[in-house]
């Protein structure tokens, strides 16, 4: 029997429910692109920390990350193709690794750690929208208050309520919001990149100096003072470059993961999979989301180096990050983060122009904020349907179709974690925990994908991807293995040596308190699972029966 991919005799279809004609690649791209959000996660939490590895080069680190995340994309597209309606990591892992492991990894990665993401989202709202607006309009009292612990906590509450509201809109309503946000955000990004291309560094330096004086009362020479505060040129990455010898650039990858690891976020395929073309369509949506983002980032970084100056770009970032985490008390001559769109706004020396740019860039936040609770809601529902969580947590209000209990289970712990984040500076430095716990979940899925062709032979062989092999080895096993390798590298970097009490270590999350925080989440998940297991058993329900395969013959 010879097999090739391509046109052959076509199916005859009759009129029947569910026979849809696929979906637009652009839509699939859009959700992936908004998840690997260049402006929110990229600019602040990933590209703003380059100064901590002065000998590293971001471009090769980004390229290597992109290559390995590509394997993650292939892995997830493969799993979606094998089990399309499964709803993600939880069910994939349940089928391959077992219900207990799957529950613990899924609820920690897609539910519990999202509590920590609430203040992460809030921080973005604060430093990319609220504080810049307060700054350009010289609302000094507001600017100061937003920078306080109380101010941050209130922004966390606002963010949690906003995310809850977006969930209550329903995905159909939010999808429209997201699309508008995409166009507005991209338009704004194109505009500032054009300014960065055509504008001169001297012009920016002069504008920054004068705007820092006008808005914050900074002494003349704010541009140089910003670099000096960061330790001067010798303490900062020398210049943007591209060396094939990775060296310390590898150390940047665990930071970049905070931003670049999510092209599969919310990747769910509905409907009926006809074949390999669906696998390719799902994969290409995520792939474009990932690589367009990387392309945008590369162009942006080159322009940032040209327009702001590489030293200034990194110095402004380092100053603010040091201040934000409580390592220093001086944010720099500009009292806010040197958020690139705001800096481009400074170039025009006009508050209104700056405000418009900042507001348009707010679309990147709005188009992303709705994702905060959506995935958690899905996992909570799936666990309730599997009888691990009480049935009531999947209740949906009849009038508005809002998952009330699931939202409560997200909102209340989120606010508690937000309070820790706002009022305890050390807790803020555990920021990479937010990525690590999800990376562990992805790691479990990558392992499940690697062994799927052997563990669930029938399921795999019945799928469209069973024909994709490299040297006789299933493609999904190869991509799953390489994904696990990549995630394993990052986990090693983040965690090793464990229980290191030196808080100055690069990623700051292998300290005891961070490990206790994460360990507590895994313990909580395990306890919930064990209670459910024994409680359901007393009711005559065996949880292991959920994924037991019925014999065919």
């Amino acid at each position, binding site marked *: *029997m010879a*097999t090739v*991919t*391509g*046109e*052959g*005799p*076509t*199916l*005859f*279809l*009759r*009129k*029947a*429910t569910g026979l*849809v*004609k696929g*979906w*637009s690649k652009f*839509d*699939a791209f859009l*959700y992936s692109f908004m998840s690997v959000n260049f402006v929110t996660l990229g600019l602040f939490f990933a590209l703003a920390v380059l100064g901590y590895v002065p000998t590293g080069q971001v471009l090769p680190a980004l390229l290597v990350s992109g290559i390995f995340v590509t394997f993650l994309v292939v892995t997830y597209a493969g799993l979606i193709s094998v*089990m399309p*309606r499964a709803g993600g990591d939880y*069910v994939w892992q349940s*089928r391959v690794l077992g219900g207990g492991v799957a529950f613990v990894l899924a609820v920690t990665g897609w539910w519990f750690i999202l509590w920590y993401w609430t203040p992460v989202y809030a921080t973005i709202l604060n430093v990319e929208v609220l504080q810049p607006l307060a700054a350009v309009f010289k609302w000094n009292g507001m600017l100061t208050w937003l920078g306080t612990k109380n101010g941050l906590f209130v922004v966390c509450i606002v963010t949690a309520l906003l995310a809850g509201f977006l969930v209550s809109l*329903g*995905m*159909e309503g939010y*999808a429209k919001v997201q699309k508008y946000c995409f166009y507005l955000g991209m338009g704004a990004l194109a505009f500032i990149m054009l300014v960065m291309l055509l504008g001169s560094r001297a012009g920016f330096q002069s504008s920054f100096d004068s705007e820092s004086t006008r808005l914050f009362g900074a002494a003349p020479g704010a541009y140089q003072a910003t670099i000096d505060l960061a330790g001067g040129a010798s303490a900062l990455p020398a210049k943007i470059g591209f060396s094939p010898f990775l060296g310390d650039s590898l150390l940047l990858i665990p930071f970049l993961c905070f931003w670049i690891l999510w092209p599969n976020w*919310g990747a769910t*395929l*509905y*409907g009926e*999979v*006809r*074949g*390999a073309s669906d696998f390719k369509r799902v994969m290409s949506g995520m792939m474009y989301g990932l690589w367009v983002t990387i392309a945008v980032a590369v162009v942006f970084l080159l322009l940032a180096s040209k327009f702001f100056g590489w030293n200034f770009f990194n110095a402004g970032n380092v100053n603010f990050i040091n201040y934000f985490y409580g390592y220093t008390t001086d944010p720099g001559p500009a009292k806010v983060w040197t958020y690139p769109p705001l800096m481009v706004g400074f170039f025009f020396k006009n508050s209104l122009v700056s405000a418009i740019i900042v507001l348009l860039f707010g679309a990147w936040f709005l188009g992303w904020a709705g994702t905060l609770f959506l995935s958690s809601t899905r996992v909570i*529902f799936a666990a*309730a*349907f599997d*009888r691990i969580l009480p*049935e009531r947590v999947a209740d*949906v209000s009849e009038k508005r*179709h809002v998952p009330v209990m699931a939202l409560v289970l997200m909102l209340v712990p989120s606010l508690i974690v937000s309070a820790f984040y706002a009022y305890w500076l050390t807790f803020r430095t555990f920021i990479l925990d937010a990525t690590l716990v999800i990376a562990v979940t992805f790691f479990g899925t990558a392992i499940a994908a690697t062994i799927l062709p052997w563990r669930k032979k*029938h*399921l795999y062989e*019945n799928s*469209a991807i069973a*024909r994709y092999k490299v040297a006789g080895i299933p493609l999904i096993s190869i991509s799953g293995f390489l994904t696990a390798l990549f995630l394993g590298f990052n986990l090693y970097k983040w965690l090793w040596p464990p229980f290191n009490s030196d808080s100055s270590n690069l990623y700051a999350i292998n300290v005891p308190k961070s490990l206790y925080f994460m360990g507590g989440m895994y313990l909580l998940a395990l306890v919930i699972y064990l209670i459910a297991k024994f409680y359901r058993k007393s009711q*005559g329900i065996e949880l292991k*029966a*959920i*994924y*037991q*395969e*019925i*014999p*065919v*013959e």
Partner: protein
Amino acid sequence: MPTVKIFFVTDLHGSEICWKKFLNAGAFYKADVVILGGDVTGKAMVPIVQHADGSWEASLQDHRDTLQTEAELQEFETRVMNRGYYPIRVSDEEYRAMQEDADLVDKRFKEVMLDGTARWLDMAEDKLAGKGIRVIACPANDDMFEIDDQLAHATLVETGDEDHPIDLDGFTMVSMGWTNPTPWHTFREEEEPELAVRIQRALTAVTDPSTTIFNFHAPPYGSKLDNAPALNEDLTYKSGGQALRPVGSTSVRDAVKSFQPLLSLHGHIHESKGAARIGSTLALNPGSSYEEGILQAAVVNIDMKKRKVKNYQLVNG
């Protein structure tokens, strides 16, 4: 018998592997009765075209296969049937003729669906005769009317519809394969007012909610058992399939709300596996992953004496 255990699946759509699992599920889960709620038949035919040189060519999941031997043909046909499609062996000329003539396709569809259903009924007979497990299979909106007779005349497999409730050891199961309109204009769908009348007519056969089970193919509107991806006019997904909306039936919802049966079993929306409480009624949709050969099901234990659902579980066998 203190409890009766029901194994409920729906929307198998011709998947042979799922049907085989269904027939084994009674013994596997120690169920007293196994129920296929609706949508028995497949949606697609896969032509296996014989060329002049005697070789066969076919395409499945976008992979084109050239088949030489009878063993290869049979292996391919098994793969096709496991996904819920019907393999048909045709000559080049037949294939071309079918491509140009919708009536020929309809005629062939009717043949393969009836043949397929007959084969399934025979398999049930072979597998379960004398085993003491009741097997019920009901038609729904995607099933053409011709299979009703086939099911009605089966020896082992029982069937029911809105005019023929089924007694389940003292409980009465009322079935309704008709649904509210879909974008595909399938065999058994009608506007909500007409569907409501049909439901009311079916309910004249039952009086006691505590001994009544609904097997209504369409899920209740807005129950979270009916969330499907929103579609554009041309039947492509809106927003990459991310935009979900309730598409269930308001008539079914109203009937469940007002009658309050002990249990309400649904299907139709494959993506919307779940459980919901509507008043005192437990409503379930096990969903369907028939193409992947996964038998999604609801296992429900009913306490006969207390007339209550003792427990339930949604499984993926």
